[in-house]
C-alpha cells in the first residue's frame, strides 16, 4: 500500500513525531511504500540539525535522517511553516539574508502542494498530531 505520513507536532513536547517514526518504520518493515513524510505546523522542528537532546534520550531528528538514508524517504518540511519557526535551508537563508541555516541532512524544504500531492498519490494519508 502507498502511505503518506503527516507530522503536525514538534519533537519531545508531543508524542506525535515519535509515533509517526514508529509507524513509518513498521510500515516499511511490512513492505509498504511511504510516498512522503510531510512535516507541518510545529512538525517542521523535527528537521533542525541543531537539537542536542541528552545522551540517554532518543535523538528524534537523527532517527529520521537515518531512516531517510536507509529507505530513501522523502522528508519534506513545509516552507511557510518552517520560515515562521526559523527553519531555513541554505538557499532560503541566503534569500532571506540570514547568517545561518539549520535543515538537517535528509530533509528538504518545499511547499504545501507536496502535502496535497501526497494525499492524491497515496492510498492512505495518516496524520500524527494532537
Amino acid at each position, binding site marked *: 500500500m502507498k502511505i503518506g505520513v*503527516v507530522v*503536525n507536532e514538534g519533537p519531545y513536547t508531543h508524542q506525535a513525531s515519535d509515533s509517526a517514526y514508529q509507524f513509518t518504520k513498521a510500515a516499511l518493515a511490512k513492505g509498504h511504500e511511504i510516498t512522503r513524510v510531510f512535516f*507541518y*505546523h510545529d512538525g517542521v522542528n523535527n528537521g533542525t540539525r541543531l537539537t542536542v537532546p541528552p545522551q540517554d534520550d532518543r535523538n528524534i531528528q537523527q532517527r529520521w535522517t537515518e531512516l531517510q538514508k536507509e529507505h530513501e524517504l522523502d522528508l519534506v518540511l513545509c516552507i*511557510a*511553516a518552517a520560515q*515562521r519557526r526559523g527553519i531555513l535551508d541554505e538557499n532560503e537563508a541566503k534569500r532571506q539574508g540570514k547568517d545561518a541555516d539549520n535543515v538537517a541532512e535528509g530533509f528538504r524544504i518545499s*511547499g*504545501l*502542494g507536496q*502535502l*496535497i*500531492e501526497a*494525499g*492524491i498519490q497515496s492510498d492512505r*494519508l495518516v*496524520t500524527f*498530531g494532537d
Partner: protein
Amino acid sequence: MSDESIKKFMYMNRKAPYGTIYALEALEVVLIGAAFDQDVSLAFLDDGVFQLTEGQNTDGIGVKNFSPAFRALGDYDVNKLYVEKESLEARGLAESDLMELVWEDEDDDWAEKPSIKVVSRDELKAIMGDQDVIMSF
C-alpha cells in the same frame, strides 16, 4: 463511477481560530489545495465552529484576524462547509452567529448560494465516511 483522478478531500477544523496557529495554517492548506482541482469540503466541529463566527475582532491580542479569508473560498470553488450542529449548540451558538459565506453557481446563472451547511453529528459521520482523504487540524 467518478473520475478516479479526483479525490474527495475533507479538511477537519476542530480548534478555535486564535490561541494556536492550527486554524490559520489549516486555511493555508485549503487555499493551496484549491489549485489541485479535487473535490474539497471543510468540516467545523468542537471549538472549530468559532472559526466561522461573524464579527471577529483580534485588536486586543495583536494577532491578525484571518476570518475574511473564508469569504474568498467560494471563488476557489470551495463551497461545501459543514458545521456540526451539536458543536454549535454546546457553545451557545446558532447558524445566525456565523458569517454569511456564499459561492456563485455558474450552472445556475451565477446565482449566489450559501456555502455553510449545518449538519448533525450523524450526518457529518456519513459525509466523513464518503471521503478519500481527511486532514484533521
